[in-house]
C-alpha cells in the first residue's frame, strides 16, 4: 500500500500471526480427536447444519471471489456482478444433488459413481484423476494469487526489501509458507481442523465485509443510486453500470469478433452455473453432517451466506470505484485485486484518521490471508481424500485396506499434493493464471457433473459411460484451453504485450473462446452417453434400484453414531457397505 506506515504493517503481521496461532491450536486439538477414517475424511460426521453451511460458504468464498469480484466491479463495473450471480445460482443445482449424494456416498464423489459398477477400479481411478486435476488447478490459482497478494499486503514493492528479502524472494517465501501451513492443517487436523479453519475464516470474512459495506453505504447516506452515480462518474466510462464492460464486448465493425465475445461470455456463465455441484472440495463437505436432511440445511445456510456476501461485494466494488478511483486501483494492481483493500484504507481513514485507515486495512488484509489459507486447505483435503480413499483404498487395495492404513495414506497424500502445489505455484508465480479458476469450474462441470447426474438418474448408464464422460470432459476442457487465447496468441492491441500464458510471438491458438465450457460440457455429456450406448456391458438394474432407494430414502446411509467397537480403533478392515 502506498501510504501504509510501518505501524500498519506491524499490525497486519500481528493479525496474521494471531490467526495462524489460533488455527494451529485447533489443528492440534483436531489431531488428538481424529481416530478413524470418518474423523479424518468427514470430521466424524458430527457438524451441525449451520456449522457445515458456514464452512461450505467459507470453502466457496475464495480470495478470487472476495478480492477478484470486488476488483472486477471496481474496474469494469457491472460485469463483475455477472460472475457473482453465476456463482450463487449454481447452488440451486447443488441443493438438488446434496441429499442424494449424501445418502448414497461415504466420503467422495466416486462412492456414488461406482455404486452401480461391478468392478470398481476403472471408475475410481477416473474419479480420482478428475478430482486431483480440478483441485490442483484451482489450488494453483489460489497459491499464485496468495504470493502476489501477501507481497502487496505487506507493502513490498520492487526496490524495497522486507526482512532483508527482495520482493521476488518474499513472493516465493510467501507461497512456501502458505503451502506449509496448509499441509500442516490437512495432514494433522484432517476434516475437523479444516472445517473449523473454514468456519473462523467465513465469520471473519462476513464480519469484515459487513463493516466495509456499512461504511461505504454510510459515505453515501445509504443512498444506493448516489453511490452508483459517483462510481460511474469516477470511472469515466459511459457504460459502467450496464453489462458489456468486460464480457461479451462489442467490437464495432467486426461481427464475428462480437459474436465470439458473446459466446465466450455465455460459455463462462454455463461453466459457473454447472461447475459448483461437481467441485470436489464442495462434495466432500456433504459428508461431514449426520444425515441428508442436515446436509440440505447446510446448503441452505451456504446459499444465504454466499448470496448476502455477493450482494455486499457489489457495494465494495462500486464503492471502491467511487472512493478510490480507477487510476489508483489499476496503479496498484492492473487486475484490481487490491480494490477492496484500498477501499478499507480509505474508509478507515475517513472514520479514524490515518490510524483508522491502517487498522481497517490490517484487519481486511488478515481476512484476505485467512481466506486464502482456508480455501487451499479445503482443496488439498479434497484431493488427498480422493487419492487415499478412491485410488489407494479401492484400486490398489481392492476395497479392503485397513482403516489406519488408508488414513496414513491420506495424510501422506496431503503432503504430496501440497508439496506439488508449492512447487508448481513457485514455477508459475509470475504467470497470469487467473483463468485457472474458471477452468476448474469448466472441468468440474464437464467431467464430474455428467457422471453424477447419469449415475443417479439414468437406468441404463454403465461404468464405461462414467469413465468415458469423466475423461472426455476433462481432456476436452484441457485441450480446448490449451488451444485457446488464454494460453497463446492474445496480445494487448495497444502495448503489444502478451495477455496469454506464453510470451508474445508464440501463437498456436485454434479455439477462439477463452472459456471451454460451451463445447466441453456438452462433450462430456456426449461421451458419457456414447460410452454407455457403445459398451457391451448391460447396466445392473438391481443395483440401480438399490441406488435409487438408498439415495432417495437414506436407508443404509453412513451416519454419525459410531458402531460400538470390539477391537482397538484402526484395526478393522474398512467394510464395504455393499451387501
Amino acid at each position, binding site marked *: 500500500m502506498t501510504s501504509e506506515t510501518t505501524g500498519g504493517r506491524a499490525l497486519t503481521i500481528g493479525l496474521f500471526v494471531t490467526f495462524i496461532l489460533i488455527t494451529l491450536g485447533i489443528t492440534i486439538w483436531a489431531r488428538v480427536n481424529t481416530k478413524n477414517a470418518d474423523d479424518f475424511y468427514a470430521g466424524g460426521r458430527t457438524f451441525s447444519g449451520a456449522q457445515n453451511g458456514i464452512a461450505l460458504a467459507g470453502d466457496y468464498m475464495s480470495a478470487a471471489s472476495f478480492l477478484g469480484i470486488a476488483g472486477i466491479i471496481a474496474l469494469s463495473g457491472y460485469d463483475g456482478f455477472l460472475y457473482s450471480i453465476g456463482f450463487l445460482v449454481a447452488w440451486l443445482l447443488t441443493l438438488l444433488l446434496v441429499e442424494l449424494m449424501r445418502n448414497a456416498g461415504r466420503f467422495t464423489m466416486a462412492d456414488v459413481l461406482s455404486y452401480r459398477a461391478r468392478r470398481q477400479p476403472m471408475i475410481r481411478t477416473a474419479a480420482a484423476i478428475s478430482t486431483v486435476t480440478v483441485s490442483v488447478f484451482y489450488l494453483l490459482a489460489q497459491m499464485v494469487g496468495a504470493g502476489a497478494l501477501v507481497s502487496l499486503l505487506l507493502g513490498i514493492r520492487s526496490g524495497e526489501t522486507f526482512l532483508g528479502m527482495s520482493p521476488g524472494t518474499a513472493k516465493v517465501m510467501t507461497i512456501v509458507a502458505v503451502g506449509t501451513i496448509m499441509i500442516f492443517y490437512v495432514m494433522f487436523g484432517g476434516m475437523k481442523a479444516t472445517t473449523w479453519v473454514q468456519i473462523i475464516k467465513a465469520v471473519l470474512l462476513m464480519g469484515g465485509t459487513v463493516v466495509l459495506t456499512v461504511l461505504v453505504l454510510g459515505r453515501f447516506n445509504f443512498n444506493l443510486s448516489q453511490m452508483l452515480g459517483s462510481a460511474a462518474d469516477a470511472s469515466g466510462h459511459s457504460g459502467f453500470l450496464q453489462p458489456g464492460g468486460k464480457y461479451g464486448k462489442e467490437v464495432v465493425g467486426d461481427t464475428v469478433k462480437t459474436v465470439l465475445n458473446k459466446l465466450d461470455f455465455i460459455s463462462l456463465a454455463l461453466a459457473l452455473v454447472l461447475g459448483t455441484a461437481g467441485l470436489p472440495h464442495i462434495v466432500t463437505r456433504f459428508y461431514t453432517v449426520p444425515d441428508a436432511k442436515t446436509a*440440505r440445511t447446510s446448503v441452505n445456510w451456504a446459499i444465504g451466506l454466499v448470496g448476502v456476501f455477493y450482494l455486499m461485494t457489489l457495494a465494495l466494488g462500486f464503492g471502491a470505484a467511487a472512493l478510490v478511483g480507477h487510476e489508483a486501483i489499476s496503479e496498484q494492481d492492473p487486475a484490481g485485486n487490491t480494490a477492496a483493500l484500498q477501499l478499507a484504507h480509505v474508509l478507515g481513514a475517513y472514520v479514524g484518521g490515518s490510524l483508522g485507515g491502517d487498522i481497517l486495512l490490517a484487519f481486511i488484509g488478515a481476512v484476505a490471508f485467512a481466506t486464502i489459507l482456508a480455501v487451499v486447505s479445503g482443496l488439498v483435503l479434497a484431493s488427498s481424500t480422493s487419492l487415499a480413499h478412491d485410488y489407494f483404498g479401492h484400486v490398489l487395495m481392492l476395497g479392503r485396506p485397513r482403516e489406519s492404513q488408508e488414513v496414513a495414506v491420506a495424510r501422506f497424500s496431503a503432503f504430496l499434493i501440497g508439496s506439488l502445489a508449492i512447487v508448481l505455484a513457485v514455477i508459475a508465480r509470475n504467470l497470469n493464471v487467473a483463468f485457472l479458476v474458471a477452468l476448474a469450474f469448466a472441468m468440474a462441470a464437464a467431467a464430474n457433473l455428467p457422471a453424477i447426474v447419469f449415475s443417479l438418474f439414468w437406468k441404463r448408464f454403465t461404468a464405461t459411460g462414467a469413465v468415458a464422460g469423466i475423461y472426455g470432459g476433462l481432456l476436452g476442457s484441457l485441450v480446448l484451453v490449451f488451444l485457446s487465447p488464454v494460453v497463446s496468441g492474445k496480445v494487448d492491441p495497444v502495448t503489444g504485450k502478451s495477455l496469454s500464458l506464453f510470451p508474445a510471438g508464440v501463437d498456436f491458438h485454434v479455439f477462439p473462446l477463452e472459456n471451454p465450457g460451451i463445447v466441453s460440457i456438452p462433450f462430456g455429456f456426449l461421451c458419457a452417453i456414447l460410452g454407455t450406448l457403445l459398451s457391451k456391458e448391460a447396466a445392473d438394474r438391481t443395483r440401480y434400484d438399490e441406488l435409487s432407494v438408498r439415495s432417495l430414502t437414506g436407508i443404509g446411509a453412513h451416519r454419525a453414531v459410531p458402531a460400538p467397537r470390539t477391537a482397538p480403533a484402526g484395526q478393522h478392515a474398512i467394510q464395504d457397505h455393499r451387501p
Partner: protein
Amino acid sequence: MAGQSGHRPADGDFNAISHDRRFRLVRKRSRRLAMGLISSFLGWYFLYIALSAFARDLMAHPVIGHINVALLLGVLQFLSTFLLAWRYTRYSRRMIDPLTAQLRTEADIRAATNEAVIAERRRLEDWTPPGDHRQARHRMGGTR
C-alpha cells in the same frame, strides 16, 4: 461397520422397497420437484444472461436514479435463488421427508428383526447339546 449406524438392510430388501407404493410416490414427487426447480432456475438464469449479452439497451434503461434494469434483474436473480431454495426445502419437508422417514424406520425394524433371527439361529446352531433331544427338535422347528 465403521461409521454406519443402525442395521444393514437385508438382501432383497431394497428390491422390495423399490416396489413400495410410498417409495414410488417419493420418486415421482422428487423427480417432479427437481424438474421444476431446474427448468425454472436455469431458464431464468439464461434469460438473464441472454439479455445481458444481446439486449444491452434494455438493460441500460434507468429505473430509479442510477439504478437500471440490469441491476434490478441482477438483484432479482439473488432474490429468486433464495425463494426457490426456500420453496424446494419446504416442499421436501412436507411432501417427501415424512414418507422417507417412514420407509427408513420400517427398513430399520425389518433389518433389526432379521439380524435378531440370524443371531438366534446361529446361537442355537452353535450350541452343542449334551444329548438333549428336545433342544434339537426346537432348533428344527425354529428353522422351518
